[in-house]
């Protein structure tokens, strides 16, 4: 009953037309023959093509070079299709692996999907074409049990090596109550511990040369400079890094699995905890993607409030970055000053959202409340406070010879390398590459704001730090414009799928009462489709790829976080460096493990 009601009143935009005639689709069909592809129409805003497993490597090579080349393998993951009800017109598949290529300079995206049968879950590995596919393929193997042939080392990445089962499969339970109570014996503990022991030979490393042994050092998972539960095994010759192997997964909470059991609405608080320093910034790509599925246009006021709060959190996150960045280079004091500033930011955030780190404040169709009385004065105070402090932080960097010596030309990479490894955000812009999703792919009304995108030149640790200071200045500009031009109007869309619906409307008549009741008990039902939203988050490009099967919960939620590829890049960059350089580089990446492991 509820479904028909909801569907009849939703007025979502029609599916985008014309993506099947995109130049790259035409070129592919010309090169390989139109019958090799199956076009899927979605709300993702990009062409989605199904291809056969046999064609995968060929097509990928074609898309790697030449006129139709893509710059980045943005994402790679899979979907368990076995329980999906609404897949009319799609090729038969038990599992689907999707490849998301993007071309940031020219603003083109392409998604390729490969259908797999449960009896034959094998695929050629993409690592020879895109080295950054390495970790993604390991994760797909870990989560779905899909085997990538030719992968250099296909082992679990997020789950412990001893784990049984593949958690993102639909037949794998999502709740602890569906399992027997957990227990750990002493022997079990020893076994787990032993499984974590690093064996250099497994990674193709030597234990030493003829006349010397290397030291293998466990850096983490508990180390003051590891920024969370992150382990890197270092192969050391004295203090020089011969090689290193990052080991992630210690912060894995199964956020993507949880999305398949929470309602569209009740999943919002989980998104806050993906990049836990980003607060409501994390809500944004999720609610935007949900709104695409629901066909909701949010009012200007809601969009502007969202922008303002997201920028508050960008400043907040960058301040945390800055403090720990100085600290990891050995400067003890700045972190206390940046935390003072963060407190100032929290005073604003707290007054507006009622919460500090994880407000979970955005809603499907708007935000939770309107701005409180006197919010403008608080924001004004913050705007007055920050610029002086930022100048001071910049001087701390630029005028200190020791600091420059530690960061200039250390751990530097160029744009090509960055794109190849999926590096985005300030870390990409530090190389001089001009891409900011707020400018090039505006969302939530960013196109209406006047701000600049700072660019670096060296791509080194110093530039990555400076980038953040300048970004904070620009964020202040955006917040100031929000303050001056905050539109009047509603903070929630007047739409049947707005959740929770405006309360005043509930009391009007029985239909709105039923809608309200269903939405706060079951949650909204979204039409079957797929949608995608990419945003310029605090640490780089964060995106949500949602698949709806016409139910109150998401069928598959893929969260692509910026920190994941940033960490994969560490060994490539740090070979031959020194341990203190590694620490400084880790600090300059700006990651949190929750953002990596999800």
């Amino acid at each position, binding site marked *: 009953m509820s479904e028909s009601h909801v569907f009849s009143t939703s007025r979502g935009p029609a599916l985008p037309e014309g993506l099947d005639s995109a130049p790259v689709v035409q070129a592919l069909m010309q090169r390989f023959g139109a019958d090799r592809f199956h076009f899927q129409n979605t709300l993702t805003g990009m062409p989605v093509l199904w291809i056969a497993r046999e064609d995968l490597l060929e097509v990928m090579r074609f898309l790697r070079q030449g006129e139709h080349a893509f710059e980045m393998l943005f994402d790679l993951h899979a979907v368990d299709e076995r329980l999906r009800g609404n897949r009319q017109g799609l090729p038969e598949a038990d599992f689907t692996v999707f490849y998301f290529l993007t071309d940031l300079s020219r603003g083109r995206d392409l998604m390729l999907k490969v259908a797999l049968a449960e009896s034959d879950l094998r695929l050629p590995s993409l690592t020879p074409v895109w080295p950054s596919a390495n970790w993604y393929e390991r994760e797909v193997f870990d989560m779905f049990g899909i085997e990538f042939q030719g992968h250099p080392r296909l082992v679990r990445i997020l789950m412990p090596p001893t784990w049984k089962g593949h958690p993102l499969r639909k037949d794998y339970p999502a709740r602890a109550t569906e399992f027997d109570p957990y227990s750990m014996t002493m022997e079990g503990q020893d076994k787990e511990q032993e499984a974590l022991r690093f064996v250099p030979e497994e990674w193709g490393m030597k234990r030493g040369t003829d006349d010397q042994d290397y030291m293998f050092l466990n850096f983490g998972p508990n180390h003051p400079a590891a920024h969370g539960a992150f382990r890197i095994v270092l192969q050391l010759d004295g203090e020089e890094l011969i090689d290193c192997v990052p080991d992630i997964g210690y912060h894995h909470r199964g956020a993507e699995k949880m999305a398949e059991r929470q309602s569209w609405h009740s999943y919002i608080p989980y998104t806050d905890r993906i990049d836990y320093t980003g607060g409501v910034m994390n809500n944004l790509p999720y609610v935007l993607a949900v709104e695409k599925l629901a066909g909701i246009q949010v009012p200007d006021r809601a969009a502007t409030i969202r922008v303002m709060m997201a920028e508050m959190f960008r400043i907040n996150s960058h301040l945390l970055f800055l403090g720990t960045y100085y600290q990891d280079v050995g*400067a003890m004091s700045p972190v206390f000053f940046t935390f003072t500033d963060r407190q100032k930011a929290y005073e604003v955030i707290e007054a507006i959202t009622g919460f500090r780190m994880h407000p979970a404040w955005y809603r499907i169709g708007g935000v939770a409340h309107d701005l409180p009385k006197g919010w403008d004065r608080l924001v004004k105070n913050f705007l007055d406070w920050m610029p002086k402090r930022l100048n001071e932080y910049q001087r701390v960097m630029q005028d200190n010879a*020791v600091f420059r010596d530690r960061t200039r030309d250390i751990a530097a990479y160029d744009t090509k390398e960055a794109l190849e490894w999926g590096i985005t955000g300030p870390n990409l812009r530090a190389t001089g590459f001009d891409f900011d999703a707020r400018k090039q792919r505006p969302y939530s009304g960013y196109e209406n704001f006047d701000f600049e995108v700072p660019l670096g030149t060296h791509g080194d640790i110093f530039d990555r730090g400076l980038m953040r200071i300048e970004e904070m200045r620009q964020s202040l500009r955006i917040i100031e414009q929000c303050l001056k031009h905050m539109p009047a109007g509603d903070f929630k869309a007047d739409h049947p799928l707005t959740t929770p619906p405006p309360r005043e409307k509930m009391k009007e008549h029985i239909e709105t009462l039923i809608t309200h009741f269903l939405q706060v008990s079951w949650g909204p039902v979204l039409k079957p489709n797929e949608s995608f939203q990419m945003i310029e988050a605090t640490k780089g490009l964060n995106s949500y790829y949602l698949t709806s099967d016409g139910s109150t919960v998401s069928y598959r939620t893929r969260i692509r976080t910026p920190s994941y590829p940033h960490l994969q890049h560490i060994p490539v960059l740090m070979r031959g460096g020194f341990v203190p350089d590694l*620490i400084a580089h880790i600090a300059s990446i700006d990651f949190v493990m929750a953002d990596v492991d999800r």
Partner: protein
Amino acid sequence: MSWLTGDVVDIIVAVIQAIVIMLVAVVVGAFMSFVERRMLGLWQDRYGPNRVGPFGLFQLGADMLKMFFKEDWIPPFADKRLFVLAPMVSMGTIILAFMVIPITPSWGVADLNIGLLFFMAMAGLNVYAVLFAGYASANKYALIGAMRASAQTISYEVFLGLSLMGVVAVTGSFNLRDIVEAQAGLWFIVPQFFGFVTFLIAGIAVTHRHPFDQPEAEQELADGFHIEYSGMKWGMFFVGEYIGITLVSSLLVVLFFGGWHGPLLPPFVWFALKTLFFMMLFILLRAALPRPRYDRVMSFGWKICLPLTLINLLVTGVVILLNAPTGQ
């Protein structure tokens, strides 16, 4: 009371003086931990420990209580004898080095003719504490810390000694009391400015204080050589470091800032004030500077400080020769 001869009285007085100086050195060192935290708080826009007693003055007592009652843990994989020995060496050598410091004209433990050499010997021995701790802990972080410490100490001790040779050459004595008395007119900071600068740097390096805290560099080695230590053994390293700061500060005063010399105020007050100044400088450095990379620290020592001390010594020698009475 026939045994109470003049000699015996002298001995008793000397013993009491020695005990008092040792206790004061230890208490000042321990109290430094509180002062440092308060001063850092001041410079870092926060309070620091201010809850225990007025202005947090009893924090030291609370810390000591905590430390004494902590489990005295020795890791099963450690080399037990060296593991226990290391903190003793650390604190012992530093306290022994205090022996040669002349505090006022009448206070001081020993007037060794080789006073300065004795200090350098003790500073040299002190590195064994770090080496033992790093080796005995059987921990890779501790080992890297110990490796850094030994390399750093060897490099910096070379010019630690050389930087003082100018002072020795001018005074003509290794006796610290003679050195102080030679500064009655002009403090050595003026004629031996480069000696002062290099000694200050070497002094910081020898006490492993920021920015030369490479052996323990928290962000890199997660505490380095004393990572496996806890309770009172760790406390001895901790207090030892602060006593080291007090020692180097008082040496700076004795060697370059005229020791107890100063107008109006009594000699002891002058000595204490000057020493306090340098102790604060140590803390301020920690609050203000990032940490240079380890290999840069080494090359700075060898390529800049060492040549500087040699030139300083050379120029000092030339000046002495020019001023020397001719025609011997």
